[in-house]
């Protein structure tokens, strides 16, 4: 997210892979977090995005001790991929459907957050000779 988000253009960010096991809660599976955002939503109201034109899916709440929390998801993360499916150009409802597929027990998310970028920058500064940063995943 260090670059300005331009819809349709390729974006390069530092991402983290997170694997969440779904938990059986009553008669459906839950992941333990809430999402916000989407291309049909108003991006200016998103408190977590840096660029207020960013219509991506963000994690708005994490229930403590839930599967997402345990897996390392943090509030404010932007979800780039879910199980290989791109999440940057999704409506809110489509995103919800992708995450709550009954047949899948595990979701593998690709998330990005500001602190990842900062960590990379920090390491780049400390070792100026290293031009390439720690490997990031591009799509």
């Amino acid at each position, binding site marked *: 997210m260090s670059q300005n988000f331009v819809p349709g253009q390729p974006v390069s960010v530092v991402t983290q892979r997170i694997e969440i096991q779904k938990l059986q809660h009553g008669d459906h599976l*839950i*992941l333990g*977090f*809430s*999402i*916000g*955002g989407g291309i*049909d*939503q*108003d991006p*200016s*109201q*998103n408190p977590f995005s840096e660029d207020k034109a960013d219509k991506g899916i963000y994690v*708005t*709440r994490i*229930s403590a001790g839930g599967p997402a929390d345990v897996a390392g998801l943090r509030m404010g993360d932007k979800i780039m991929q879910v199980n290989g499916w791109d999440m940057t150009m999704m409506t*809110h409802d489509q995103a*919800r459907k992708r*995450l*709550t597929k009954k047949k899948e027990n595990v979701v593998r998310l690709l998330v990005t957050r500001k602190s990842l970028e900062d960590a990379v920058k920090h390491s780049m500064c400390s070792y100026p000779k290293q031009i390439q940063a720690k490997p990031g995943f591009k799509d």
Partner: protein
Amino acid sequence: MDTESTHSGYSSRSGRSNRHGDRSRERHKASSSKDSSRSERSVIINPPDTPSQESPVHNGEPLPGEPTPSVDQGDDAQDDNWGETTTAVTGTSELSISQEEVVGLGKEVQDRTQGFRRYLPLAVGSVVGLLMLLTPLAFVLLPAVLWPDRLEACGAACEGLFLSISFKLLILLVAVWALFLRPSRARLPRVCVYRAFLITLTLLLTMSYWLFFGVRILDPQDEDYHGIVQFAVSLVDSQLFIHYLAVVLLELRHIKPCYSVCVIRSTDGETRHYNIGQLSIQKAALTILEYYYRDFPLHNPALLSASKHRAAKHLAGLKVYNVDATAGSTAGAQPGNGNPSRAMVTASAKRKDSAHNELYYEEADYERRVRKRRARLVVAVEEAFTHVRRMKKEDERATPSDIMDVREAALAVFPSMARALQKYLRTTRRQHCHSMESIQKHLAFCLINNMSPKAFLETYLSPGPTLQYGPERWMADQWTLVSEASVTSGLKDGSEFLLRCLDFNLAVTVKSIPYIRVTEEFIDPKSHKFLLLLQSETSV
């Protein structure tokens, strides 16, 4: 309750012994001359009023150079202590004045308001109107009287014209009465230019018609009666058109607002803005004065004394006498000159430091006192109003001694609030504006109209417009128009003039109303479309 008590002037003003002699004498002369104008035989001495009075009354108007005081109520002694009972003390407050002096004063002042000048326009208007009315009639009647045998018979068309003349003359009569035949409401320093122009025009018209009539009709004794009647009708038409011109020049032109004037009172800075039309300066002054009497709160000189004291103190603080002579070299003199001035500045600065402090605490204290008195007054009035109630059907059987008419009811209710009201008026320095009579009258009015205690009190809580008080406060004949431009010239953007009354001025500045340009923008009603912006949060 004994609300009418007389007291000697000396006993009520113990602290001001120096100026007693002059001022009380003047005041006595003033008050007595007012009564003497009514009855030239008796001279009634009214005792002077409470210490906060500062100016005498002369035949209902203040003497020049002194601010307005309280009013005498004819034969009743004006008594500000009607809220408290005081014992009557006669004595040194009576002075004798010679009859001629008193009578002379009365006559001189009366001339100013009731002169013949007030009815001069009325007289001129009636003369001209009569002339205009009689001329067409003369044109029609003279041939019939002077050479009836040679005159052609008047056919139907001609007689139709008689009908037309009579109705037009009737309309003209009513119109002239409506516009011109009124006693003027003011006396302006100069003659109105438009009126003079219109009268001249009318006379010119009438003269030229008479001339024509005399030369072409009377001399050759024309037989064409139809033509003569048509001539008379044309005269009436012309007169109606002149009247139309008069309406446009004298009335309509003044109505459309063209200038915005700002009126500032010199003593306390009260400012008002008005929109007026194209008037001459004197007419504008008249309009502004009529607004003044309606809008500006009463001028109260008693409220200005505090700032005058402060001004005096400032002046006193700056007086420094330079005893050292400025001899010697300039270099030596400069520091020498610098020191006294610096000392002067620091001395005045020190005094100024305490002056604004003083003002602040004084004003805070005054506010507090006024609010306290006001609270007591409101409670007293509300309580007083609970004692009286309008009589209903079932009360008819009550004892006759309890039933009273409004005047008695007012008199019965008044004493319980009189003291609180008087104290409040004293604190706000308005006790000279309201006499006991006027308060009782107002109370009776409020009782008749079923007003609440708050409605009754409104008159006393804030100073109302000048017209609300009696004619002695109006000073309607004391106005002087001070202007650099001629007073019959029209108002222009940037004109300024001054209206001077006895102890205050109204400064008037004129600005023209801006030329406003309004453009339009069309909005298609179908273009009002909206988007719904959501931000939902779903838990997964």
